[in-house]
């Protein structure tokens, strides 16, 4: 399983990446592996606001429905519009093509409270 060093991770298994003014969000390799084949993705619209700790989207595998939680608050600037037609991208490329949304964050300092790759790996081994 792969946990890129440049990402930060949440206890709900989302990853975030600061790219310029925007923060990209998706779910981790561990999360996609636990879910199994992803068959449906529900995402917010551009312009919606997301709130830290609240669900902003839904990922469904054959067997399970899973909420995706916002690691930080902000306004949705971009949405991965390819995902609804090819939700399996979350399985095959969770960190790149499987990104879900990009937001304009309200408060970047929230990032400091998230786990780095080493901490996240230790976290999931404990789970």
């Amino acid at each position: 399983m792969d946990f890129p060093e440049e990402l930060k991770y949440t206890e709900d298994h989302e990853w975030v990446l600061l790219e310029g003014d925007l923060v990209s969000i998706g779910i981790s390799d561990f999360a996609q592996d636990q879910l199994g084949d992803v068959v449906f993705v529900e995402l917010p619209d551009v312009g919606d606001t997301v709130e830290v700790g609240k669900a902003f989207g839904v990922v469904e595998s054959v067997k399970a429905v899973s909420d995706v939680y916002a690691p930080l608050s902000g306004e949705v600037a971009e949405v991965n519009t390819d995902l609804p037609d090819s939700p399996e991208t979350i399985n095959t490329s969770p960190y790149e093509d499987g990104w879900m949304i990009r937001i304009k964050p309200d408060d970047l300092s929230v990032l400091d409270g998230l786990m780095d790759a080493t901490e996240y790996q230790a976290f999931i081994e404990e789970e």
Partner: protein
Amino acid sequence: MNKVKKTVLNQVHRDLGARMVEFGGWDMPVQYTGVIAEHLAVRSAAGLFDVSHMGEFEVSGPDAFVFLQFATINDLSSLVNGQVQYSALCYATGGIVDDITLYRFDDEKYMLCVNAANIDKDFAWLQELAVQHKGDYELVNRSVDFAQLALQGPKAAAILGGLTSADLLSLKTYHFCESDVAGMPMIISRTGYTGEDGFELYCSPTDAETLWRALMEQGVPQGLVPVGLGARDTLRLEKAYALYGHELSAEILPLEARLGWITKLEKANFCGREALLKAKSGGVRRQLIGLRLTQPGVPREQYSVRVAGREVGQVTSGTMSPSSRQGIALALVETVAAKNESEFSIVIRGREISAEKVKLPFI
């Protein structure tokens, strides 16, 4: 809580990297590589399932026939030696105890195959019936004497054919024989739960691992893959086969659950008959129907089903069909809606998603 039970193949599944889950009190593989890949392999080639958690009861003796005619809703009189019958046990209320397959070895020896989660309940129920219907027969729970593997898919016969002396060409669907596979004695039954051609093999638990390995060795070159409970569920749902605890329960009548074809009300007497006759003459309240989403989404069990904004029933099983890539659902709805409506909606996270009634099976 009872300890979670393991089949004799538990370690084989773990060694294959299966993800294990608890199902009906058993620690079972839900998937090996992925539900969709396993599902599609069964539709196009073949899959191997460990279904050793299923239960087997034997009923034997001169009065076995009479007892089983009373205990089951289908008619045994049409059954010949070596034939299998799909049937069900009902309470006096007409509600379903379990759905079963019934094997006739000869006129004094039958075997019932029952759902894993219901083994204890079913056996206790049959014992209770046996007290009321005494006779010269014996009822034995033989679940620990059998492991069961299901080999399913269009390549199943070709794979099994290379390992058995049984004449598979003359073994018809819903028939069985006592023969050998890979040199081991077993029951070969041309039955299954996937809608594909295939076999259910009942063998001694001590032979199960050897059988698994022999089938894999023979089958992998022909596309055989091990298949977990995840794909077992999507395969049966595409074919609209009922699953106990979802389409079938003590609160659901077989006449509501599309099991009218096995409910032989013309049979002289069987447990549940009076209640079912009464339900039929009064009009059956609910019907199980098939719905296909016409908008993106995945229907799930217990989601509300509506017509023009009014709730008419609930989803009993739903999934994204791996074959058609559409949301499909079985739903128990009011009979009037089932008969007269074609446009339904399913409420998913508070939103009505359009669904159309479709003929079953889904594929």
